[in-house]
């Protein structure tokens, strides 16, 4: 089983590495979704290096926690996280979106170790996560399901069908993390199609809701731990994130939702991320 890392400085350094990997991957692939993937580095670090019970050397371990990624377009961050956790060699990251690669443009179950579900069309992941949680519950297992969803996909009706079923079955073994980064392809979520008040909506649907800073790894871990102690309802962690976090020219810009960095963009981004890395290393924790 993967050893859990609790040292926040170490985790922040891992998140920084994952960001740099994502920038390089997307540049190499020449297409893909930059801002969302980079913005999720802290959450993915928290999940795979602290929260989840899993074993990169035994990805099909029956009692592992399941991670379902619903908004598949952010998969570069999942791939980079899996590689850094040891699921497959890091060199393979540069094959993203290329013919013959195990790293498909959107995740494909069965291609790559550690991928629990194929995804791409939005709104489908939560249903899959609910199905898994029902099995764990029926068989009295301890493994939990952690599902990542986006804010834009809350506009899909299927999400709310799944939310109702999770509450009906009181799925305390289901933790969902929503990437609340406020952008979608066509613009800002509240302009394209308002989805607020999200916390009230999920509470009304019978969920336990926690708001966190999606770049504060300690808060993310604490919220996941809190969800484990809520037995009678599923938990929605609304993680407020900055799209493109730590790459200044990408931050908060919906234009960066669906495009890759050019060579110049990549060099600038990596320089910025190296500077951030130095600051993390100098932190006295």
């Amino acid at each position, binding site marked *: 089983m993967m050893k859990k890392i609790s040292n926040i400085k170490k985790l922040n350094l891992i998140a920084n590495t994952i960001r740099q990997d994502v920038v390089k991957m997307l540049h190499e692939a020449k297409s893909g979704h930059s801002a969302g993937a980079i913005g999720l580095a802290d959450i993915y670090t928290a999940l795979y290096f602290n929260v989840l019970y899993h074993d990169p050397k035994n990805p099909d371990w029956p009692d592992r926690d399941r991670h379902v990624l619903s908004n598949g377009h952010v998969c570069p961050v999942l791939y980079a996280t899996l590689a850094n956790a040891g699921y497959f060699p890091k060199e393979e990251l540069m094959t993203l979106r290329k013919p013959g690669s195990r790293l498909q443009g959107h995740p494909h179950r069965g291609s790559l170790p550690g991928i629990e579900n194929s995804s791409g069309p939005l709104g*489908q992941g939560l249903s*899959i996560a609910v*199905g*898994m949680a029902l099995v764990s519950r029926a068989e009295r297992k301890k493994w939990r399901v952690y599902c990542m969803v986006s804010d834009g996909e809350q506009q899909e009706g*299927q999400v709310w*069908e799944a939310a109702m079923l999770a509450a009906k079955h009181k799925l305390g073994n289901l933790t969902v993390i929503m990437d609340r980064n406020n952008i979608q392809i066509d613009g800002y979520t509240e302009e394209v199609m308002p989805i607020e008040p999200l916390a009230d909506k999920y509470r009304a649907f019978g969920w336990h809701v926690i708001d966190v800073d999606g770049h504060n790894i300690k808060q993310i871990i604490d919220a996941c731990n809190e969800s484990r102690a809520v037995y009678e309802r599923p938990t929605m962690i609304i993680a407020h994130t900055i799209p493109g976090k730590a790459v200044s020219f990408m931050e908060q810009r919906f234009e960066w939702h669906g495009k890759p960095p050019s060579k110049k963009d990549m060099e600038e981004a990596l320089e910025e991320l190296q500077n951030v890395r130095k600051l993390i290393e100098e932190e006295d924790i």
Partner: protein
Amino acid sequence: MKLIKNLFEPELLKPSRDGFGKALVELGEKSEDFWVLTADVSESTRTHWFAEQFPKMFVQVGVAEQNLAGVAAGIASCGKTVFISAYGVFSPGRNWDQVRVSICYNNVNVNLHASHTGLTVGPDGASHQALEDISITRCLPNMIVMSPCDMEEAKKAAHAAAENILPCYIRTSREKTPVFTTPETPFEIGKANVYRDGKDVAIFAHGVPVYESLKAAEKLKEKGIDAAVIDCHTIKPIDEKTILKYGKQCGLIVTVEEHQVNGGMGSAVAEVVAENNLCPMKIHGVYDKFCESGSAKELLHKYLLDAEGIEKVVEDSMKMKK
């Protein structure tokens, strides 16, 4: 092929959905890794028999077919065999994207069952008559498509789907129809059943029209037309071997189905016929239209899908022979 003794005096009239429902109970008794889900139609789909006996392995998702498909995919990805059951227009109609990605692209053992398909849905009218379900399922990679002809065959199809690791779609009917196959009649995915041999024309049918085609063949014989009748219960993978054999033997193929002529079993057969430059063929079914309310019997008659209609269509098609 072992059919009932007095083929044209059937003792038992049952809807094929009953066979599916019975098979689920047998499967539940055999394995604890077997789950069934429905979307507010447990009685109509006959999944309520399973639900009564195995409540822990049964999930009622409410009127939410997209979620139905997704939840099933999640359960199946944990190594379970899952059946989801609803009306054809809703599943695989309403949830086609979920069937495509969550089920077929994930390649998990989720089997779809539709209880209300074809014209024989009857009085509910066009909105509920699934006439496009075969087109939209047979184009999906990994998916197997079956349309059993009676209750007995529906039971076998459900067992075959459970044993097969690929996703399957099973199409059954709500209408009571003659149970004319027997437990001894063979059933193998991808292998069509020849119920009547013939040398002038080969009728390929699936579902309710199979029995009607057998009746039509009797009448055609009186007119000097020797028709073979083939139960094409598996539409994907289509039984190329039997099509080639009967295309050569008869020199004319007529396909008959309660489905749009666009993309159904007829199209699947036509793909084989065209690629092999085989023989003339007629694709009979519903001709690119929404139908109407009426009893199953009235509608089959009006749209030339009962024995009388099939007889007429086959007779008319004979002039296509070279």
